[in-house]
């Protein structure tokens, strides 16, 4: 309302203020009065005074309107009335365009379901061990092992705890905890001497002062200070003793040692890495292993942790500074360089995969990124379809605008529609997430308590935020386009694609979607191929039809009689007693001396204890010398090619007949042969130098090669024999294949995850594509009719549609391929032995997308191409 008013004007902002608060039907007279009076005062009192008085007037006026507002002569629509109307319109238009609404709700719903689940998973992992009240001060000491390279271990030598608390005053509490593998635990008081396999830990009582694992029974003072005392969790107590009071009951560990239960812990929360549920007094560690409990500073045993609660004002770097001095005090000069220590904060435990952490933060963020991708594709879908639909609604908008709708009102009307769809999608998504949770739990090996996570408060905050964010990103652009229509053009029906943000915008979006899908497809193919390679590639030994059984008792007599009995069972082709399979987590990796060299070697050697049948059972190839002879104690050695090379020998024959002494009880022997390299760990790791040596005292398993045809009966027979031989133990066995498969647990988890994501991304993408092509077909009905009348063939019409999508897919591919190549090469770098990313992988990806896209657009396109032109051209 710019009018040529003479003379000075009152402050504009005051006018705006009053315009905002004054009831509209009074505005004219009020503002007129104010201005008239202002100009009077300017003439009488001068401008400054007039301005001052003007502000006073406005403020006074505001007081009257705020407190004594007079009703307007018209009915005043409340804010909610318009909103209600918006929702009504939204409901109607969704109902009218059922396909469109269905596509949107399904697509967004799937995307949101993934987002919800991924949020829950990421949150679950980030919450690990965050519930400890003193979490800021909790650390553990870790070992950096400097040899050829640097390896880090979460373990420390056993005397560390005592040394650290005696020599330094940094710590408020220090607790050594040794977590053992699954161990046989039996209940002697039960009638049938019930037996269980459980993880046990030998722990110092201070552990429970450092971490918050509250006791529900028993006293906290002098916890586990007495030897032969144990505390267990409620869950284990129920499992062992049912409803009986567990306190003062006796549990027997490894059939040898009795422990009295003195306390019961509350069940471990799902978000802790401390999974042990039976804690035994640390003073009994010497029963378990004299060596482990001894004063050896050079032995590093897996599971030996030293937890520390620092005093409040001490920082980790203060402590790290004194560790070199500690190394020098307890090691000789050479070892002090090898053993270096460092503190690791509690918050790093779960994420440091080098030190046994479960998942790296990088992987976690990659997961979050996939979730984001899925949401983005779903939003893009929505935007795409909504803009494509825009023309359909141009008349409606025209009429609305002619009747006085403002741009912002139309904008909010469409935002209301978006939020309605998003809300429906969110409900769908939540339901899908709820249904999918059991699968996700088994897929990702999450703890069973995880299904409560969907009731989590933070998630319930996340949902509305998600709703608003998705609504905004999905709806903003189409609402803006629709609201910007010129009413005249809209009503005349002269709006074209150009006015709906053009095809370019939508093309860009589709390209983005396809790029994301192709990225995921390529990821899936690469990971799947690598996994197939890892499972099927020749590992240098036979792993089919081989079953591993544990050997709990290692007396020579037991082993010999077992060997005899096994040889009588039908269907067994070979038996070997050994410490683990050729490819396994290392049982022992020790320093060693070779030949008559004065110094020990600079690298460690992996020891595989095994009898003379090991080589034939696993089909290992001896390339020089001969296989070891049968012996109950250490005598002959086999070494592998890598060991030969690392020893600096020219040919394998040079190793034969040389003396070798390994740092495992200082056993000596003669190298009698060299085996061809085989993979001694997963494909993640390079082949290490190793030796094979027989010794009954070290065998932990026996491996049986079975005739595939008689597998079940043979296993049953072996089972019977086993139970007769070891009546006190828990029987179990495992196929070597499965054992090796477990190396790649994390990888196959990632694979399944990315497979599912890729499938969902493609599905969402197809939904969008379908919507788009149906719309395009409807738009081009006339064009197709004219073309056909002028003699176009059905093929050329097909090409009219196909050309467009082909181009989009190719552009998307050119974006996705390099990115995927880079990402997947990074992932493959985790493997020492890996596939090459060949062109065939990319070809598969593009062909797959192409095929899927063609199937999606096919129906609509063919329908359009085959339509009778008369129908489309008859009515103008």
């Amino acid at each position: 309302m710019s009018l040529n008013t003479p003379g000075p004007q009152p402050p504009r902002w005051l006018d705006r203020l009053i315009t905002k608060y004054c009831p509209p039907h009074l505005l004219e007279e009020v503002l007129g009065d104010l201005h008239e009076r202002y100009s009077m005062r300017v003439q009488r009192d001068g401008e400054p005074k007039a301005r001052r008085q003007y502000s006073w007037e406005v403020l006074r006026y505001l007081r009257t309107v705020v407190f004594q507002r007079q009703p307007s002569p018209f009915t005043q629509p409340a804010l909610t009335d318009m909103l209600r109307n918006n929702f009504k319109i939204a409901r109607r238009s969704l109902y009218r365009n059922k396909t469109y609404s269905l596509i949107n709700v399904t697509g967004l719903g799937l995307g949101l379901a993934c987002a919800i689940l991924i949020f829950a998973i990421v949150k679950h992992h980030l919450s690990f061990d965050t519930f400890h009240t003193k979490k800021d001060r909790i650390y553990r000491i870790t070992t950096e092992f400097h040899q050829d390279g640097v390896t880090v271990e979460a373990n420390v030598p056993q005397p560390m705890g005592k040394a650290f608390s005696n020599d330094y005053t940094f710590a408020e509490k220090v607790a050594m905890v040794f977590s053992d593998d699954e161990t046989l635990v039996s209940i002697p008081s039960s009638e049938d001497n019930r037996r269980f396999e459980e993880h046990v830990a030998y722990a110092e009582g201070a552990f429970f002062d450092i971490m918050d694992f509250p006791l529900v029974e028993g006293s906290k003072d002098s916890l586990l200070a007495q030897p032969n005392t144990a505390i267990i969790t409620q869950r284990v107590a129920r499992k062992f003793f049912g409803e009986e009071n567990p306190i003062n009951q006796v549990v027997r560990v490894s059939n040898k040692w009795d422990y009295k239960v003195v306390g019961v812990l509350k069940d471990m929360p799902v978000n802790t890495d401390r999974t042990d549920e039976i804690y035994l007094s640390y003073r009994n560690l010497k029963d378990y292993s004299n060596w482990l409990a001894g004063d050896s500073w050079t032995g590093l045993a897996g599971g030996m942790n030293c937890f520390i609660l620092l005093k409040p004002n001490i920082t980790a770097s203060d402590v790290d500074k004194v560790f070199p001095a500690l190394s020098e005090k307890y090691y000789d000069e050479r070892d002090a360089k090898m053993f270096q220590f460092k503190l690791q904060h509690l918050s790093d435990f779960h994420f440091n995969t080098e030190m046994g952490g479960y998942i790296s933060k990088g992987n976690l963020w990659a997961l979050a990124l996939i979730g984001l991708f899925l949401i983005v594709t779903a939003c893009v879908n929505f935007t795409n379809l909504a803009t494509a639909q825009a023309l359909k609604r141009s008349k409606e908008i025209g009429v609305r605008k002619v009747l006085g709708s403002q741009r912002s009102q139309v904008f909010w009307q469409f935002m209301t529609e978006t939020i309605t769809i998003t809300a429906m999608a969110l409900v769908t998504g939540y339901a899908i997430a709820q249904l999918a949770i059991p699968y996700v739990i088994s897929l990702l090996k999450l703890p069973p308590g995880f299904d409560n996570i969907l009731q989590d408060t933070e998630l319930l905050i996340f949902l509305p935020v998600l709703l608003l964010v998705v609504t905004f990103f999905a709806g903003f652009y189409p609402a803006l386009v629709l609201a910007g229509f010129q009413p005249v053009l809209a009503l005349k029906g002269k709006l074209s694609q150009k006015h709906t943000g053009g095809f370019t915008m939508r093309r860009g979006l589709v390209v983005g979607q396809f790029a994301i899908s192709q990225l995921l497809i390529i990821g899936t193919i690469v990971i799947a191929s690598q996994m197939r390679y890892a499972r099927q590639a020749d590992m240098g030994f036979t792993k089919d039809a081989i079953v591993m059984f544990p050997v709990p008792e290692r007396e020579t007599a037991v082993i010999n009689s077992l060997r005899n009995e096994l040889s009588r069972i039908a269907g067994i082709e070979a038996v070997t007693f050994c410490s683990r399979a050729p490819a396994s987590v290392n049982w022992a990796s020790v320093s060693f001396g070779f030949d008559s060299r004065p110094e020990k070697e600079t690298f460690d050697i992996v020891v595989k204890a095994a009898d003379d049948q090991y080589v034939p059972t696993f089909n290992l190839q001896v390339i020089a010398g001969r296989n070891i002879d049968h012996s109950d104690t250490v005598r002959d050695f086999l070494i592998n090619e890598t060991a030969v090379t690392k020893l600096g020998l020219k040919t394998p024959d040079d190793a034969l007949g040389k003396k070798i002494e390994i740092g495992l009880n200082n056993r000596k022997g003669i190298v009698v042969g060299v085996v061809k390299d085989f993979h001694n760990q997963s494909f993640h790791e390079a082949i290490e130098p190793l030796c094979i040596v027989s010794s009954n005292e070290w065998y932990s398993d026996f491996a049986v090669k079975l005739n595939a045809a008689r597998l079940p009966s043979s296993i049953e027979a072996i089972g019977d024999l086993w139970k007769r031989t070891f009546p006190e133990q828990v029987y179990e066995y495992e196929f070597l294949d499965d054992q090796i498969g477990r190396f790649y647990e994390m990888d196959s988890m990632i694979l399944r995850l990315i497979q599912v994501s890729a499938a969902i991304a493609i599905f969402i993408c197809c939904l969008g594509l379908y919507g788009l092509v149906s719309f395009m077909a409807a738009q081009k009905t006339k064009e197709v009719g004219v073309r056909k009348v002028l003699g176009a063939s059905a093929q050329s019409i097909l090409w009219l549609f196909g050309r467009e999508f082909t181009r989009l897919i190719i552009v998307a591919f050119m974006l996705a391929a390099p990115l995927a190549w880079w990402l997947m090469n990074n992932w493959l770098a985790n493997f020492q032995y890996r596939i090459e990313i060949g062109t065939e992988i990319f070809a598969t990806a593009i062909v797959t997308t192409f095929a899927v896209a063609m199937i999606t657009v096919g129906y609509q396109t063919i329908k359009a191409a085959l339509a009778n032109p008369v129908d489309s051209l008859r009515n103008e």
Partner: protein
Amino acid sequence: MRRSDLGEFEEVVLLAVAVLTPQAYSVVIAEELEQQTGKTITTGAVHAALQRLEQKGLVSSQMGDATAERGGRRKRIFTVTIAGSRVLREARDVRNNLWDRIAPHSLPNVNIA
């Protein structure tokens, strides 16, 4: 509160409307009252009073002309209704009655210069 109850300020405004008719609108009324009373009277206050009077049916209004000073906006012109004039008269009667009954010399003398 009865509809015809008249506040002191409202009464003055109503009188001013009667005085200034046919050109009675908030600005001139406010100016007039300012001159008469010597106090600052805001347009807003007058406006509010006029609205109350109109609600009570004591004045009626219609939109008048626009002027340049008003930025081209029209003004609302008020006139006293029959009800309004009755209320004014009643108020004056009450006052006159009371004045008439004041005994001579019972009010302290005020010297009017």
